């Protein structure tokens, strides 16, 4: 963050100090998010070490192509968000609105594909519980894989929904002309959150879909 020296309202001395405080606050929040998801990743590691074959069997029941396409969709949404961050600093307002809309649409597409995948699992009796009955015979440890699959992807999806709400709000602000280079913080901070949610999926994808 370049020191801008612009005067801003109290408690900040200038815009550079405000930007630093915003960055530190957002990264502190992201640290708590790392630990929130981290607990699930550690649980995953413990059970996978104990039941490697069951996890490989569970992974093979997931749709490799939906997982791969969804990863590409999320990475593309992150690109759109990164371009939106550049656009707001350069006062490219139409580009900003377009990129925010694109980010939202790609995020929504991700959730639609994820919802379709959940439906598939419901039809295949792969929802953990008394009706869990995978084709080829039930395997108790495989249920653990699906408990973690739904917990991890579900928590991720909740974060996606929150992110879509924030991006929709930014889109409305951008259409009203209330986002510009004088105050790029909102787009930047929302971008940090969105990219972090993308990073979580970057690890969920190989750990859930690519076990062989």
């Amino acid at each position: 963050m370049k020191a801008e020296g612009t005067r801003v309202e109290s408690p900040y001395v200038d815009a550079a100090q405000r930007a630093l405080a915003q960055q530190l606050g957002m990264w502190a929040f992201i640290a708590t998010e790392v630990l929130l998801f981290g607990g699930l990743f550690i649980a995953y590691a413990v059970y996978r070490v104990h039941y490697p074959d069951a996890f490989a069997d569970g992974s093979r029941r997931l749709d490799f192509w939906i997982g791969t396409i969804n990863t590409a969709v999320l990475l593309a949404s992150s690109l759109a968000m990164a371009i939106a961050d550049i656009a707001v600093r350069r006062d490219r307002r139409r580009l900003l609105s377009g990129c925010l809309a694109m980010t939202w649409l790609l995020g929504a597409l991700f959730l639609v594909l994820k919802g379709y995948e959940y439906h598939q699992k419901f039809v295949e009796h792969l929802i953990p519980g008394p009706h869990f009955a995978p084709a080829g015979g039930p395997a108790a440890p495989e249920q653990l894989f699906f408990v973690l699959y739904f917990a991890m992807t579900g928590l991720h999806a909740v974060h996606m929904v929150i992110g879509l709400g924030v991006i929709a709000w930014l889109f409305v602000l951008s259409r009203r002309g209330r986002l510009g280079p004088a105050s790029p913080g909102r787009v930047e901070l929302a971008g940090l959150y969105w990219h972090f949610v993308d990073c979580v999926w970057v690890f969920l994808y190989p750990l859930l879909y690519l076990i062989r």
Partner: protein
Amino acid sequence: MPSTPSPFRPVLLVFAGLMAALMLSAAASYGLSGTSGTVVSLFFATVKLALIFAFFMKLREQAGLVRLFAMAGFFWLAIAGVLIAADYATRG
């Protein structure tokens, strides 16, 4: 050739790198299994994480204090991971 490079060029190049890492990761899963498959797929995930953190989240242009905050969560997570692994490794 314009005299000033496009401001969007770096993020577009990063996106190309992310997609390449995704394709390599997906392709490797067909040929590799077990521990080697996991190591390779996590390597590509880490590459993607580093690219997103450095460029999309702009850590490479942030002050050292911000980078320290960014690493804090992973440091605490590593403590949890090491202690839990030590617990399982030393159980009778």
